């Protein structure tokens, strides 16, 4: 499927996003296709599992940035919530639902990207 078409479910404002990339569709596309290799999600999971809250914050923060740049607004928001919670010192049970949210959004993005034409 055409890029923007495929990404519509996960990109709230396609125009804004493209504008960020100076209208350079090819550049955007390149990075979109790179996104699945981004390790921050799994790193986040590991950090949480290991109780490395500082690391978790860092990975969540980075994930947020990437997502935001690429227009994955909901994913970005979910990651942002995790960062905020971690900064508040929340852990364990309070954190779980937020992490779940990130996980879901992340899965959504990956699906959408998979549907894009290479």
């Amino acid at each position, binding site marked *: 499927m055409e890029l923007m078409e495929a990404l519509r479910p996960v990109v709230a404002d396609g125009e804004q996003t493209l504008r*960020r*990339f*100076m209208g*350079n569709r090819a550049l955007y596309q390149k990075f979109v296709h790179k996104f699945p290799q981004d390790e921050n999600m799994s790193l986040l999971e590991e950090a949480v599992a290991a109780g490395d809250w500082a690391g978790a914050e860092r990975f969540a*923060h*980075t994930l*947020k*940035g990437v997502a935001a*740049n690429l227009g994955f607004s909901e994913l970005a928001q979910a990651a942002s919530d995790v960062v905020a919670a971690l900064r508040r010192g929340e852990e364990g049970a309070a954190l779980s639902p937020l992490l779940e949210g990130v996980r879901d959004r992340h899965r959504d993005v990956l699906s959408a990207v998979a549907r894009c034409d290479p």
Partner: protein
Amino acid sequence: MQAPCRDTLLIVDDSELNRAILREIFYREYRIEEAENGRLALEVVARQKDRLAALLLDLVMPELDGFGVLEELARQGLLESIPVFLITAETSADIALQGYENGVMDVISKPITDPSIVRKRVGNAVELFRGRNQLAQLVEEQVQTIKAQSEKLRTTNASIIDMLSSVIEFRSGESGQHVRRIRQATRMLLQLLATEYPAYRLGAEEIEMVASAAAMHDIGKILIPDYILNKPGRLTAEEFEEMKNHTVYGCDILESIPFFQEQELFRYCYDICRHHHERWDGLGYPDGLAGSDIPLWAQVVSLADVYDALVSQRVYKKPYPHPVAVEMIRSGECGVFNPLLLGLFLRCADELYQALYLQDGEGKTHYTPPIGLRRSASYHPPEAQQLSDRTLALLERERQKYHWLSEMSGEILFDYDRQNDSVEFTEKYQEVFGDSLRILHASDHIHRAGQIFPEDLRRIERELQALTPENALYRTEVQLTVLGGQRVWFELYMRSLWEGENDRLCTGYMGKLSSIDEFKRESARWRQQAMHDYLTGLYNRQALETRVNAAVCDPARQPFSLLFVDLDNFKAVNDTGGHLAGDRLLREIAAKLPQKLRATDMVARVGGDEFAVFLEGMERKGLLAKKAGEICRFFGEELGHPSPGISASVGCVRYPADGKDYKALLQRADRALYTAKSRGKNQFALYAGEMEGEPYRPPLLFSTENELPL
């Protein structure tokens, strides 16, 4: 120097995506450099700091974060020339504030919503900084220019200082050595001081500055009138007061030099100028400072100056030998000095003398005699005239003896030094002419002083050229104007002095001026007497001949006439009344006859009873006849005496009509006279050509049969 072109943007972010997005925004306008952490960013900065137009900086990065980078940039002072933008996802105001406080230009939040705005913001800042950098460049250039000008001014001022110092030297007639010596001596003393007393913290640069400033100490003398500055005798109280002012005048001059007061050198120059005559005990001038109130540098120059004055020739004094000068300073008779400085001086005095006042350093001196016997510093006597101190002292004694002998003679003696163009007189000269005893620039002075007429001076100068070592004496008479204005005759007697290879160089003259006025007046009187008849006081034959010859030789060829008057029957007077009666008659004639004549005419007694009358300008026969007739009547009728039949016979001749010279005129006058006598006496006869044929006895030219009373 061209400012490097700032064309590069440095993007610092650990996220490749972020870097790509930013690159995409700016790559068209800027060259892009990237760094993924703070450390690498600083490496780029180090290499390219002059090319960077701006820095886009992420905060959270491994190794060195954004604030770390900012801190380093601030430390290197780069934040003034490179605008830094913080690109951060943090929305809190705290971060932004911290960013601004750390020197960022602006904070841009990510994700970027509007790239074109970001571009504009960065572009504006780059523009701003470019302007600011150019301005800084301009200011830097201006500063450099001003520095260069200031340096030039400083050098110019130094030259002005040197020049002024030289002018002073020349004006006060001292040798060019004085300033150089003071400078060197100051330097030497200060160097010794710095070595012995490190507590004063005198650096080499400071010493140099003080030594330069020392050259200025007497510039105020430029405002002291010549007659005080060069007065050879003692100064009066007022003159001394004025002289003291040279300290303050010097400060005035220094203050008037533009931009000088800002320089460090000025302080030294000012202090030295003003205070080099202060005394340690407070009795100096102009401010009466005492002890360590006197700036140290002024004290040093003061000491150097005193020493130099003692061992050098000056207008008002002769030099003292070195050991004498040192002793005078030690004993305090030349002023009171800082004991510490005095001690230092005494230690290095010999070395000072050696280095500065001798022509060679072998411990022997070139004798530098005072002005009377002196030759200039540039002239070296043949074969080293190197003398030991003892010989020096002997010579000094001889010089003094010579000086006193010449003074005691009571004559005007002089000694002229050709190379210095200076002359020295004994005291009698001042008494007679009212002029100074030591004169510098003598040639010029003699021309201007008005004592000798220019023609006389030229004549003497010309005649002096002819002198040689073999023919060295010169004598002449000349009229000079003395004190009071009278013209007096002097005999100038002098000898030229020779030195150099084969003695061919005339180095001067020594001689005597004697008044011969009395003598000249005597001889004038005698010459006068030689021209007059003793009995009657009339002119004599000699005078007549002189007068006639003068008129004949005069190119104007003025005519004149001569009357020869021979008394008739004079013998009878002597016979009847005795010789005294004859004398009385002659004297009566001498008294009254001139009254019949004009002032330009001349009456002479040319024989016992013979007279001649010289009539200037007379040539017409008619007038001549009239005059001759008057004279006959005078002798025949007006001479009131009881003597029988005194009358005169007169023979008249005219020049040039009747003769071209004295002898011819005399012959023809004689003829005419004879004619008058033979016609019956008591009459006159004008010479006429026909008389030549007649026999006659010429009484005038040859012996006369009348007695000639003396």
